[in-house]
């Protein structure tokens, strides 16, 4: 089964070599039933990688100063040697675009191809979140559309004006997603076609809502009691796009663009552990397979293993490199353990995972990848062995106590608790404060009221006030935010603040606008 001649021996890569490695890896990947979009592998220089970095990896993006900031930061860090650049960036599109840096050695390129072009790619294509929430074939078109639209607005209304709206939208972009409702797919062509129509229609809707024609007394009574919105709204940007009284149609479009892009990235934020773990599992498996079949040399394998172990290294909690759990490590460990439990189950595994023990590992693995997100994936598959291997332990922190308490460790009593706690930690809806629009004073001062429902009585960070200013800018009238723990009102934010005149406060508040 072993070949006599490896594909290459040196560390230099060439285009024919990359193609050859890709071909072989694709063959093996197919044996493992990895189902992928076609790959578009692009070789770029380190400068281009920095460009790609600063536009969140998007091949085209609208212009905004914050991307310039990102770029300068990356450039500075890179030039001072504070950080290496990522070896690759991969984009959830069809064809799936992967950037490879020209500085990489041949083993690195092969690793990256296995990781991005077959790992991430198959994840994008088959995970249910990506399947239902994103449309890989339309994203590039949509990005081009967004870029052109923003440029058009800049020409018509001035860079400054556009920047103000985008700044405010960016501040709220985590609140621009539908968490439960499936959004309509993104499409540039439709967007363009519907745009004008929508502009007119939307303005009409808003006007309807804010109609000031007097209403007969009896009806008025009734309406003061009915709330608007009838149900609390979690998608704040959507609510603004549809209801903000003073926005121009083009400003609504900008809100929509930011919202749509945030929605597009939402699945990625929910599947970090799964996605990186999956890609790491497959680069590891595919490279080992290449080695077993004699395609690559021992030297090649050594270099690969060194990079691999750097990628999946988890510093312990007391290391100065520690910055939380490494999603690569956690994901990789879980997938690998699924395979182990299928192939060589122990008594413990039979007790904990009776459905896995002794079944076909490929079936189990694909099922795990396709049907979960981080939270449910961990809840379902984190095994006692992985908890033991990673020496996981849970620390309880109460601000009113002077001590931390260890509530669970990797032992018989702790497994279940630890697993639930870790799963909860990856639940995006508890990771991010839960803020919803609860009321708009339609007949009065048009103030919008939001409610923050505290999770474990954790307050908002100090940015909240700043973000309220941005919300105020979009909404155009007073903004109130109440932070509530259970039924107890803990803190209220008002924009403009209650003790200042509205204009003055806004001027002071927004720096450099």
């Amino acid at each position, binding site marked *: 089964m072993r070949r006599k001649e490896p594909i290459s021996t040196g560390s230099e890569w060439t285009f024919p070599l990359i*193609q050859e490695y890709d071909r072989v890896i694709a063959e093996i990947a197919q044996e493992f039933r990895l189902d*992928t979009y*076609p*790959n*578009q*592998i*692009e*070789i*770029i*220089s380190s400068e*281009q990688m920095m*460009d790609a970095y600063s536009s969140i990896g998007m091949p085209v993006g609208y*212009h*905004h*100063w*914050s991307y*310039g*900031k990102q*770029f*300068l930061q990356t450039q*500075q860090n890179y030039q001072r040697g504070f950080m290496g650049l990522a070896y690759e960036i991969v984009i959830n599109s069809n064809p799936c675009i992967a950037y490879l840096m020209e500085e990489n050695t041949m083993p690195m390129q092969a690793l990256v191809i296995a990781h991005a*072009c077959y790992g991430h790619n198959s994840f994008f294509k088959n995970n249910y979140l990506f399947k239902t929430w994103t449309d890989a074939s339309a994203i590039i078109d949509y990005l081009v559309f967004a870029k052109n639209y923003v440029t058009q607005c800049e020409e018509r209304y001035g860079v400054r004006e556009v*920047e103000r709206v985008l700044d405010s939208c960016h*501040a709220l972009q985590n*609140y621009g997603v539908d968490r439960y409702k499936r959004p309509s797919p993104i499409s540039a062509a439709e967007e363009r076609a519907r745009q004008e129509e929508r502009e007119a229609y939307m303005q009409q809707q808003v006007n309807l809502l804010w109609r000031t024609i007097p209403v007969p007394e009896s009806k008025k009574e009734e309406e003061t009691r009915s709330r608007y919105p009838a149900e609390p709204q979690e998608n704040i940007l959507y609510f603004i796009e549809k209801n903000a009284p003073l926005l121009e149609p083009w400003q609504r479009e900008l809100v929509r663009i930011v919202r749509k892009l945030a929605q597009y990235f939402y699945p990625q934020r929910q599947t970090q552990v799964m996605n990186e773990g999956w890609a790491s599992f497959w680069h590891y498996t595919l490279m080992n397979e290449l080695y077993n079949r004699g395609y690559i040399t021992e030297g090649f394998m050594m270099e690969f293993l060194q990079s691999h172990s750097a990628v999946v290294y*988890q510093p*312990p909690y*007391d*290391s100065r490199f520690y*910055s*939380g*759990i490494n999603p690569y490590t956690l994901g990789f460990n879980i997938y690998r353990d699924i395979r182990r439990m299928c192939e060589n189950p122990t008594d413990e595994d039979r007790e904990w995972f009776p459905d896995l023990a002794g079944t076909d590992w490929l079936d189990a693995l694909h099922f795990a990848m396709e049907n979960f997100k981080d939270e449910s994936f961990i809840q379902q598959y984190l095994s006692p062995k992985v908890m033991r291997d*990673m*020496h*996981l*332990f849970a620390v309880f*922190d*109460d601000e009113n106590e*002077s001590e*931390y*308490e*260890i*509530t669970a*460790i990797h*032992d018989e009593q702790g497994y279940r608790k*630890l697993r639930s706690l870790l799963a909860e930690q990856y639940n995006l809806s508890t*990771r*991010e*404060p839960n*803020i919803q629009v609860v009321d708009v004073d339609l007949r009065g001062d048009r103030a919008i009221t939001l409610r923050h429902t*505290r999770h*474990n*009585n*954790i*307050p*908002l*960070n*100090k*940015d909240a006030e700043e973000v309220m200013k941005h919300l105020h800018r979009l909404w155009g009238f007073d903004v109130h935010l109440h932070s509530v723990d259970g039924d107890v009102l803990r803190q209220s934010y008002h924009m403009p603040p209650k003790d200042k005149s509205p204009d003055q406060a806004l001027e002071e508040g927004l720096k*450099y606008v």
Partner: protein
Amino acid sequence: MINSYVIDRRLNGKNKSAVNRRRFLERYRKHIKKAVNEAVNKRSITDMEHGESISIPQEDIHEPTIGHGQGGTRTIVNPGNKEFNTGDRIRKPQGGAGQGQGGGDASNTGEGMDDFTFTITQDEFLEFLFEDLELPNLVRKDLKEMSDFVYRHAGFTNQGVPNRINIVRSMRNAHARRIALSGKSRRRVKELKGLIEDEMAKDEALRDGRALADWQEELQRLETKIKRLPFIDDFDLRYNRNEKVPVPSNAAVMFCLMDVSGSMTQNTKDMAKRFFLLLYMFLRRNYEKIEVVFIRHHTSAKEVDEEEFFYSRETGGTIVSSALRMMSDIVKDRYPPNAWNIYAAQASDGDNWNDDSPQCRELLANSIMPLVQYYSYIEITPRDHQALWYAYEQVRKEYPDSFAMEQIIDPSDIYPVFRQLFQRKSA
């Protein structure tokens, strides 16, 4: 099955972020300008022209997003347990965020403290340095002897050099000529082809062999004739014609007058040089064609070159009028005021031979000011003003628009004063 495409993108533009970078610099101009101003004062004379590292406080460029703050209760799962058991209690570290909080959301707690630092290029540095500055009262002077020309497009000609060939015009002519010369033949060719075809369609026995042969011969003859027509001919060629058009020039000359007398300490001289260097860099950057005349003086004046002006160390007494006289001589000789915009900048510590100051006023008011667009005087002294300053004040009264004077006390004044002297005035 090939499912992958490998594309070499390295040759594509790498400056995709240029626009965004520009936007960022625009947004934080205030900070950058401040840093540039500070840098100018710190740098040594020889070291003016390179980029600069800019720091902006992190909080100013922070993009706010809502997240969880500190407080409340939370449980965080960490890896790498060595000694803990369930139920253990650990004292919290004193003072701020400990390890525990790092887990969930590292966005603001981790960094926060450091300034945001990045580098601007030399070009950007100078741009920020000299932004909004200009030579005042610059006008285009009409010249009898025009020395400035521009080439303007002025129609087409049928003679010229090959690099001026207008391809579209030439090909259009060639096409037209070919149509004109071959029209009759091609019409006949069409006709003949029709005849031959008709004839060939007939039954073999009914064909007129002789006529057919004639037609075919004629057809061949015509076709060679058409083929012989040259595709392009000499008289098809058209050339772009350019015309030399004289333009009024805005030639300008700057006189730099520096006092190097004994009363000027090394420190004062350094400041004067620094001022002139700034001026010189500004002129070189913003005005393509500008002449600079360097004059240094103690008791007598001397025209020197750039090198000597900035680096030589000659000293003596002080007679300021010597420099003014020399300047007015040089203007007479070389820079006729109807052809040149004339500027002057003078730096001194204010010390002068007592009898000389009225003379300076005289010279300036009567023979120099009428000729120049702008005259700026800086006095570098921490002491009280002397006769020269008061003499110059009278000049300023007479020429409030074109005469400016400022005092510099320590190096940090240089750049602000420089800016003040050359600030762009809104029209």
